């Protein structure tokens, strides 16, 4: 009898721990499927849903999505109220869109007084840049829109994502765009053409600033690695890369299959997604390394008896070569911070005067 209880107990522990691990990966699988169904057209493309699905997976299904939706709803109502004041001196045919875009920018970067009744005024404070651990190296949730909504500060990942979500709520265009280790918003208006919106410093920098980081190779611009706009589908697909990175953060590098799968799906819809190419190659590299370790091999060639590994190795090699040829360069963190500082220190040189002077009424 006692023995039986023992066995039962041990079995119970096993199943518990087993189901825990399975539950966690289960969230990732769920998020993957939800995003993939948007990409294949089974469900409608929805950037907000894709973002929260990804974050929910990392938080083991504990993200209060309803609360987040409420937060977004509050923001949209403030944006609506601000755009009703018609604070821009802009009179082209795309006036309504530009006004909405400017209102979103204002809500994210400015203090907005909201009069509740005759005696109470509520101030909606701007979202600021979180200088601590700005690439989420120690705490991955620093990258999250949910963290931004709760804490009121974020980074170059969460801020443009929130902008994109709000733009989506109003069904107006806003494009995510990549720079080395950076994401920003690109918009277009009839009066001045394309312009950049940088939410981390609440400014409108010119293209020269992004190129001035020194890590943007000319070819990388020409072939669309950097500074190109992402379509809605590509933006939704990008969440799969985030999901892959969440997965890596959570489970380490032991199981790169899921990571590779995510990256491949991203690349299917966005073949020049430089981050997906890089993450995929890194995952493959680590997989081969771990296999070499297991077999005590000194060179990767020793594993080539297995055709799948041989194919993977050459795929990885080709990706690295292609990345370099197409102009991909990695940017060290201190250079990134220095580059961000240029917008403040050399603002005269790098700010878009057309946008600032021509139609922002200040």
């Amino acid at each position: 009898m006692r023995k039986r209880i023992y066995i039962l107990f041990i079995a119970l522990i096993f199943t518990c721990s087993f189901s825990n691990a399975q539950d966690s990966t289960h969230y990732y699988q769920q998020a993957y499927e939800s995003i993939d169904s948007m990409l294949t057209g089974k469900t409608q493309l929805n950037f907000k849903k894709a973002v929260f699905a990804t974050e929910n997976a990392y938080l083991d299904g504990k993200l209060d999505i309803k609360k987040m939706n409420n937060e977004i709803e509050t923001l949209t109502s403030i944006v609506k109220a601000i755009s009703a004041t018609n604070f821009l001196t802009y009179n082209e045919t795309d006036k309504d869109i530009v006004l909405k875009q400017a209102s979103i920018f204002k809500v994210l970067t400015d203090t907005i007084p909201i009069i509740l009744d005759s005696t109470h005024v509520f101030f909606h404070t701007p979202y600021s840049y979180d200088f601590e651990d700005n690439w989420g190296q120690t705490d991955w949730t620093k990258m999250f829109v949910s963290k931004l909504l709760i804490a009121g500060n974020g980074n170059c990942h969460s801020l443009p994502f929130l902008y994109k979500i709000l733009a989506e709520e109003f069904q107006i265009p806003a494009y995510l765009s990549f720079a080395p280790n950076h994401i920003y918003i690109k918009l277009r208006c009839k009066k001045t053409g394309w312009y950049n919106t940088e939410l981390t410093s609440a400014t409108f920098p010119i293209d020269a600033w992004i190129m001035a980081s020194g890590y943007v190779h000319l070819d990388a611009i020409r072939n669309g690695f950097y500074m190109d706009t992402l379509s809605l589908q590509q933006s939704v697909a990008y969440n799969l890369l985030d999901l892959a990175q969440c997965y890596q953060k959570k489970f380490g590098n032991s199981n790169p299959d899921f990571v590779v799968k995510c990256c491949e799906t991203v690349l299917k819809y966005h073949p020049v997604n430089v981050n997906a190419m890089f993450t995929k190659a890194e995952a493959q590299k680590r997989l081969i390394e771990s296999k070499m370790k297991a077999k005590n091999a000194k060179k990767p060639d020793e594993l080539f008896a297995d055709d799948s590994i041989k194919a993977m190795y050459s795929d990885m090699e080709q990706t690295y070569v292609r990345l370099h040829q197409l102009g991909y360069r990695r940017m060290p963190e201190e250079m990134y911070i220095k580059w961000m500082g240029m917008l403040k220190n050399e603002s005269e040189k790098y700010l878009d005067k057309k946008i600032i002077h021509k139609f922002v009424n200040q």
Partner: protein
Amino acid sequence: MKQANTQKQESSSPSLRPSRRCYTLAFFAARLLLPWFICIETFGQIPVIKTPIPATLQPNVIGSPNQTPNYGPTNTNPNNQLDQYEKDKRELQQRNAELYETPYNESALMPIQYDLPLQANPTDAESFRKASEKLNRMLSGVEPMNLKQAIFAIENAYFGSKLDYQKFDKEIQDLITIAKLKAAQDEYNWNNPQTRNIMLFRVMADTLKVKSPSQESYITSYPMQYDFDDYMGKQDWSKMFVTKLLSSKSGQCHSLPLLYLILCEETGTQANLAFSPSHTYAKFKDQSGNWHNLELTNGRIVSDAFILGSGYVTVEALKNRIYMDPLTKEQTVAQCLADLAKEYTKKYGYDGFVSQCVDTTLKYDPTNIFARQVKSDCQTLRFDYVVNQVGRPCPEILKTRYPKVYQLLEERNQTYQIIDASGYQEMPEQAYQDWLSSVNKEKEKQEHQGQMLRLTRTLK
């Protein structure tokens, strides 16, 4: 005889001017009647009534020699004696005005002229025609592409075929000789194309002292200077010329890179032209496949970051390859043709010859933004000329009554749209000067020295 004395007339009889935005039937009636009244009132005068100009049709002409003609009513007072200078000036104004204006009463009778009138008489423009034919032969492959000959042809055209080719060629050969002697003296291998790239750059950008082989004397060759005076050729277009650079040893961002390209072509080494806002420079690829930018106005090798630092290079411009992309030889010769068109406008004005040239350029190089701009100028003036003949109605009327004229407007707007979508941004002159002088900053100096050192190391 008609004399345009618009200022005077406007102040003395403002009541004669119909309202600008009057498009009603009454206006058309008035248009028919008014001249008669004027004729009666101002006995013996031949008036021309100002036609209404809708605001939307105001042309925006860049660099047009003929300013938008003044349509004010003209007045002749035979008793008023003008001195010769004033008279000449007015005659010229009048001639320009006439080019774009047909008197109202003829418009109804005469068929609409859809082409701009010829600006030069055929014998004067013969040299231009010849040059354009030569370039066309090169582009279509009948004649081998030769930049030296192409450039000489277009510059010779401007001077009515009076330039001396032998002299031009000798000056080029002299520069090559010095570069070659210097290379031999420093024990660099001239057969290495990279040596030629570097030494030809140095002969233009450096002071070189070489021993003459025949005599026992030294020859000192001085670098080409940047000519700050009228460097955009606003007063004198020949400031842009390679022949001017060779004779005066000073040039600007148009002639300097072209001379370098000619030198490279003569010695059989590869170098390319590249555009940046309001600027051109030379590029070459070294043995390891890396590109180098030669800023010949300052004699420096510069980084891409320097060129981007102007702040006027947009992502769209790079993606559309209008800037910083090395031009092929074909594209460079096509650019010469666009230069020829620009010369023609500077000397005579805009007509069918200009649009023919730039259309050919764009056929061979659709990314050429310079040719695209000249084309837009052409289209603007042409539309302006044609729409004047039908009395400048508003676009809606134009669309229904003169669909062919309306099409010209559409075509012009299309060109504007292409230019806007290409990512082109106009660079103010001050910004250009500031940017160009920033090459003297310490960072750029170091960049130059570093690259020069790395390149010369491989020459022996």
